[in-house]
Every structure is written in C-alpha cells, then in structure tokens.
C-alpha cells in the first residue's frame, strides 16, 4: 500500500513538525495538572486532537503555540467533565486581585539578592501556589518563551490581559519566593 494510504506521510510530517515539541507539551501539562498520570493522559489526548486537526495548522505559524492551545483546551474540557472545583472564574475575578495584594507582601522590595540563592524546588513550589490564570501566563512567557501575541492566542484573550496577568503573576511569584527565602534564612525578617 502506498505511504499516503496508511497515513504514513501525514504521520511523518506530524512527527517532524509537531512531535518535536513533546517535551514542551509534557512540561506544560505537568504544570497545569500538577499530577503526572493526569499530565500524561492530557498530552496523549492533545496529541491525537492535534493529529486530527493537523490540516488546519498554518505551517507559517508557531506550531508550539498551536499545540499548547490544543493542550489547554483539552485540559479545560477535562476539568469541566470531571466536575472539579470551578477554578477559572475565581482566579480571574477581583478576589484574585485581592489575594494578590495579600500574598504579594514582598512586591517592590529592593533587596532581591536572594535570586542567586533560590533553590530550584522553591521556584516549583512558588509556581504551584500561583492561581492557574497567572501560572499559565508566566509559564508560557518565562518557561516556554512565547511572545505576547502567541500567549494571547493560546489563552484566547487580548494582549492587554496577557500583560496584566504576567505582571501580576510575576509579582505574586516574587512574593512567594521572597517568603520562601525568608523561611530558609536567606533573607532577614527585617528586609
């Protein structure tokens, strides 16, 4: 049977263009779900969805951003189906803004030499503590290196919203890291 009859060409193209981003999908899924088994199911689901709609992918655009969009949609579907807590509305509402000011006590502190001494595990813990809306913006920008435009496509929101979530998310993250550094004794209580 010729290659295209078994879908071999499509598979090879898909592996070359899309599957090279598997690590990125895997990492992002771990950060979204915070659970390895769930992350693996999610990546598998996203890859099969991507394969099915691969003909809609525009080869001139960033494939990683396209895949991350599919991953995120699959994640939201999963959460809706599983009747998990409604995290979405609560994390983007004013209450999240309020909690940010409560948590982000260290925002704007001038002493941040602790950046040099922060433990890798601390960044992980601090990221996990971020509300999802902020976590995914920071993750896409600072860990996956996407541009604002690409992030706005993945999150399906305007660039202005991307900017405000990034700014708040990073502020929260610094606040948490600073608190952890204080707990480890890298920073003195008075600083």
């Amino acid at each position, binding site marked *: 049977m010729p290659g295209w009859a078994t879908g071999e060409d499509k598979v090879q193209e898909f592996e070359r263009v899309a599957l090279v981003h598997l690590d990125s999908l895997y990492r992002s899924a771990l950060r979204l779900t915070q659970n390895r088994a769930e992350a693996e199911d999610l990546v598998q689901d996203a890859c099969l969805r991507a394969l099915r709609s691969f003909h809609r992918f525009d080869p001139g655009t960033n494939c990683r951003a396209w895949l991350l969009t599919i991953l995120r949609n699959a994640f939201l579907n999963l959460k809706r189906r599983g009747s998990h807590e409604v995290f979405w509305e609560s994390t983007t509402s004013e209450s999240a803004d309020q909690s940010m000011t409560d948590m982000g006590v260290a925002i704007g502190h001038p002493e941040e030499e602790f950046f040099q001494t922060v433990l890798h595990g601390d960044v992980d813990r601090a990221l996990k503590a971020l509300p999802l809306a902020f976590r995914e913006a920071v993750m896409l920008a600072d860990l996956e290196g996407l541009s604002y435009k690409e992030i706005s496509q993945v999150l399906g929101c305007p660039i202005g919203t991307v900017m405000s979530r990034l*700014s708040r998310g990073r502020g929260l993250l610094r606040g948490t890291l600073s608190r952890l550094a204080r707990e480890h004794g890298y920073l003195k209580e008075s600083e």
Partner: protein
Amino acid sequence: MNCAEFEARLHPYVDGELDVGEMLAANTHLAQCATCQSRVERERQFRQLLARQPRESAPPEFRALIRARIRQSARLAALRRWLIAPAAVAAAAVLLIFLVPGSGRAPLVTDLVNKHITYAQIEQPAEFASPDPHAVEAWLRQRAGLRVTVSDYSMSGIRLVGARIAESNERKAAYVLYEKGHTLMSVFTVPASGRIADLEGKRVSYGGHEYMTLERKGYRTVSWTDGPTVFGLVSMLDYDALLECADKLRADRAAQLGA
C-alpha cells in the same frame, strides 16, 4: 516618559515587546533615571532565575507510547478515508496545501536588516549578554528552545556581545550580536524552511558553498539556508569579513550537528 509611565511598561520593556517608538522613549527615560534602571535590572535577574530552572523532558517510554498511538490513529483514519471516497479527495487537497509555501510576507533579508537597525538603537541590544558562545547557546536553548550554533570570531577581532530572541515571519528567531570596534554584526538564525533561491540578493560562492549577498540601507548582508533553517548576517563590515564569518558558522554548525 516619566517613572510612572515607564513602570507601566516595565514588563513589555524587559520582554522586548514594546514597539520601536516606545522602546526609544523608554531608553531615553532610563538613561536619566537610576531608579528605573534598577527596576529593569531586578526584573532581568528575576527572568534569569526562571530561565535557569531545569527543564523536564518527556520520559522515553512515554514518547514511544505517544508515537505508537499517533501511528495507530493515523492508520485508522486512513482506513476510514479509503472506505469513504470523497474524504480521500479531501485528504489529497490537504497535502497540496502543505506543499504551497507561505506567501505575502515581507522579504526575509530586508526584515533582518530592519531588525538589525532597530536593535542597534536599543541601549542594551542583547537581552542576554555574554562573551561565551556556549553560555549564549545554552540561553537560547532554554529561553526559546532554539538550537543555535554561536561561533567564536575572537581570532578575527570580532567580539561576542550576547543574544536576544527576535521574531521573524511570526516565528521565534535567534539574534546573536557581535562587535568589531564600534561596528556591530548581527547573526540571525531563523527556523524557516525555504530554498536559497527564495532569499533576496546576488548569488555568490565562497569556500565551496552558495550564499546570497544583498546591500540594504547601507548594510551588507550574507544569507544562506541549511535544511529547515535560514541564516543571515547583517553588518557594515565588508563582504570578505562577512563571508569568512558565514563559512566558519557553517563549519561550526556542521561539526556540532555531527557530534
């Protein structure tokens, strides 16, 4: 621009997301404001902290599982297409679309010259500054997932300044900056499939390889393609120097990919 206005743009400034006009206004303000300079410095340190985080990879057995599932799913889909003839026609149309290259974009090399000019006006053109080619390569890999070869031209008196992430044809591209005295040289690595014939300029041969040369806005460019990647050098340096750099980069890359 005053401090409040700058602070509102701090994140897009550090992310390299301001347009040229705002970037210039921001730099003018920064030049005279130590407070905002230290804000930028803190923000950069914070980004570097995040960029230094170890990246988790998908385990090999999981990768194998995904590949098997993809093949299984594609075989089933192909079988369905055979059973439903009109769908097979649609599938052929899809393949054709893949073969038609993107059209209507700004010519790539001209775009790179514009970027070279824009970045040269920024106070710190390199987001990540380092004279160490390996450190710059590692940063590009971590920050944008780009596997870029950074050559060492110090023997020719061309000093590595650093790198930043650029965007070309809506894809992330690597911008590596060098300087010889006060003359800058940009080396762009753009993930874009294309043939050398699609690049602009005059075809020349150097060291047994084909390159395109083009002069735009007083800058000389040397560009070439290698597999799914386009390379472009932009500088006021002469063509001999640029071709020599291009030749070395090609050799270094071949050695790196072969290693």
